[in-house]
């Protein structure tokens, strides 16, 4: 049962309780650098490259990847953020976060868009992101970079760049932060 189906009534999420550390902060940074190199290799440089982070989990990661690309190539690619809350197919189940802003600094037509998210799970967020991105122009290609691929895809979506593949149970939660990646579960608010 997917997280979103379990939580059909508020409070959403609840409290994340970590059980295992999957990646340390250093592991995350090395993965960011490796993915930046892979993105540059695949796209032969930064020409027409645009990095877009999915709010809210992918935005800090996108910033780090863009910065890493900048450190390698000399100048960073254009960086944007996109909030896909209004494009989701499970729209009634997740509130719209006011801090999740969409900011796309360039026309996306004929660009190579690299979407960045923290965790790839069912793939529905990415499907929504593909719709959202096409409202800003017609990209030449859309690629996907994720820190963690945890399996359980419900749609034919696959990542191009992955930090780490982690097999998980459906009811587990993967939490990506600056200090590392944790595997755990969701306790209802009020219990720990």
């Amino acid at each position, binding site marked *: 049962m997917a997280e979103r189906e379990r939580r059909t009534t508020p409070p959403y*999420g609840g409290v994340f309780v970590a059980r295992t550390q999957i990646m340390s902060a250093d592991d995350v940074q090395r993965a960011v650098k490796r993915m930046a190199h892979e993105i540059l290799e695949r796209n032969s440089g930064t020409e027409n490259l645009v990095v877009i982070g999915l709010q*809210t989990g992918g935005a800090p990661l996108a910033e780090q990847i863009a910065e890493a690309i900048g450190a390698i190539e000399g100048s960073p690619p254009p960086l944007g953020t996109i*909030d896909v809350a*209004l*494009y989701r197919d499970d729209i*009634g189940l997740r*509130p719209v976060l*006011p801090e999740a802003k969409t900011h796309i600094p360039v026309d996306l037509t004929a660009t190579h868009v690299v979407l960045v998210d*923290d*965790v790839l799970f069912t793939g529905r967020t990415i499907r929504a992101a593909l719709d959202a991105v096409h409202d800003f122009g017609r990209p030449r290609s859309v690629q996907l970079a994720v820190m963690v691929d945890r399996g359980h895809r419900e749609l034919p979506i696959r990542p191009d760049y992955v930090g780490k593949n982690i097999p998980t149970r459906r009811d587990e939660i993967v939490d990506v932060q600056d200090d590392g990646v944790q595997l755990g579960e969701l306790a209802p608010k009020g219990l720990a």
Partner: protein
Amino acid sequence: MQHLLGIEDLSTQDLEALLRLTDTMAEISERPIPRVPALRGKTIAWLFYEDSTRTRLSFEAAAKRLSADTMNFSVSSSSVKKGESLRDTVQTMSAIGVDSIVVRHASSGVPVRIANWTDAAIVNAGDGWHEHPTQALLDAYTFGVHRGSMSGSRIAIVGDIKHSRVARSDVLAFTKLGAEVVLVAPPTLLPPYLDAWPVQVSHDLDAVLPTVDAVYLLRMQNERMDEALLPSLREYASRFGLTPRRLELLKENALIMHPGPMNRGVEICSEAADHPNSVITNQVKNGVSVRMAVLFQLLGSGPVQHQSAPQQEVA
């Protein structure tokens, strides 16, 4: 939130949450393709028993930017002319299948009555003298865009308060958001029992204007007056209109606001309407974003966040 019947039903947190949601909606309107599929498959019906330009078009734009389908009920070309009752009209719409009805009516209380006859989400677009909640929301939002939080501000509402649903909704919204409100009108245009209202009252516009952060002018509503409440429009304009002379009395960055349509030369002079401090056209623009937020809140979303702490995001 199941219906939007009035500001009286909303708490301060509800108001603030709707205003934050409006920011998200405002960004959509700036995009190359100003549309999201959020309300795809939902049908919204307009039930306007009273004339309206800006409110109805504003709602229509809002619905379309959220990809909702719209259905218009125009009284002049309907069975209402054959004597069909409000209840039958609403139940007909309900039978056809609408997710929301946006209603404007000359009688106060119609929205809450309709809510009992259908499962659709009801939005009050103005009922009699009672409330016009989306107007108050867009007024509060516009003030927020230009001057930040309303808390601690002082706002004057000037004009025919007695017959104004806009004034009633504004008083509720502005005070719930922490503003101080002063009503300025001749005694004949004030409601009879003001003790319970959280407002100050004045009959002297000249004295009030230098003290306020925004002056909100109400239209002199001829169609609502069935008694001789003023000697003449000219006398009203000279005593209570925002004339060029009175413009000088305002604080340097005080906002000039009006719900529209304006009677230039009566409650507001053209110099004021076209003044740099006038946010009247912004009010209209923000009306679309505010109504997008309301429609999304009723038909599309999960419960609105009250705290700013982000929830655990799971993909």
